[in-house]
């Protein structure tokens, strides 16, 4: 993690925010609902520069065995902010200027397709304090599980936030 943190300017690190309490582990946030939308799939694929037709065209995706337009692996980042991150940032009173995205994991259980409606529930699974060359930081791990309209789990999102002091 050091290379990443070193590249962030020291000028952003001011003050001494209170520690993030371990007691936040296990905290659950309210459920939210999202729809998988075609325009957003195309928009994300285009921004990434991924020209694979299955992310733009239903027919191309069907020819490849999909039920509808395919969804890129990082698509669920669209729901990250409204899908839990916003709650966590407010609830833990995290200063955005000190917040870094340390790591991101996606585990895929079942494909989603346009028109699917997913429900998301976020839980804080870990809070760790780490000290290194770049100083002491709090690591907050949040996990969000997405369930489709048939109550089947489709994806687990594990996001590690790094909060500099």
């Amino acid at each position, binding site marked *: *993690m050091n*290379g*990443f943190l070193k*590249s*962030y*300017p*020291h*000028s*952003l690190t001011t003050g001494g925010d209170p520690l993030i309490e371990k007691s936040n582990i296990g905290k659950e946030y309210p459920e939210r609902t999202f729809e998988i939308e075609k325009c*957003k799939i195309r*928009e*994300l694929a*285009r*921004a*990434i*520069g*991924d*020209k*694979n*037709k*299955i992310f733009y065209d239903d027919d191309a995706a069907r*020819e*490849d*065995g*999909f039920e509808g337009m*395919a*969804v*890129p*692996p*990082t698509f669920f*980042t*669209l729901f*990250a*902010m*409204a899908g839990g991150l916003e709650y966590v940032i407010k609830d833990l009173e995290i200063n*955005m200027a000190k917040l*870094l*995205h*340390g*790591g*991101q*994991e*996606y*585990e*895929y259980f079942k*494909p989603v397709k346009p028109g699917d409606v997913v429900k998301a529930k976020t839980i804080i699974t870990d809070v760790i304090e780490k000290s290194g060359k770049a100083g002491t930081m709090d690591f907050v791990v949040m996990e969000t599980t997405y369930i489709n309209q048939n109550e089947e789990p489709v994806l687990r999102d*594990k996001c590690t936030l790094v909060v500099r002091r």
Partner: protein
Amino acid sequence: MAQPKVLFNNIEVGYEIPPLVKNPITETQLVMYAGASGDFNPIHTVHAFGEKAGFGGVIGHGMLSMGFAGQFMTNWVGVTAVKKLAVQFRAVTKPKNVITVSGTVVKKYTEDGQNMVDCEFLAVNQDGDKIIMGTATAELS
């Protein structure tokens, strides 16, 4: 592009996944990614903000780099084959950076009757700086 079919029997530990070399990141691309992803942190789009933050300008979204990693994997095995994708963010990207993602198969196994491979990958810029380090798990035919 058809969904590629990678055969489990043809892949051994140490196999080098075809690398993905992206076009240089542009400021316009960061604006597009902000709109697409909903991450409107001005550090990615407003030059003056990036300067004030000490980067000399805007920096790329971490999730854009992970998006490249996703493309790297789906180009190789297709979308539905990817069962897990995980990254650690190591350094920021900047406009004009040329990102290359490369990786290898590190484990090959059968689990619940499925043919699985674990992979490790790295995204670097044109100077060889590590942008992200990651792992992926894929189910092969």
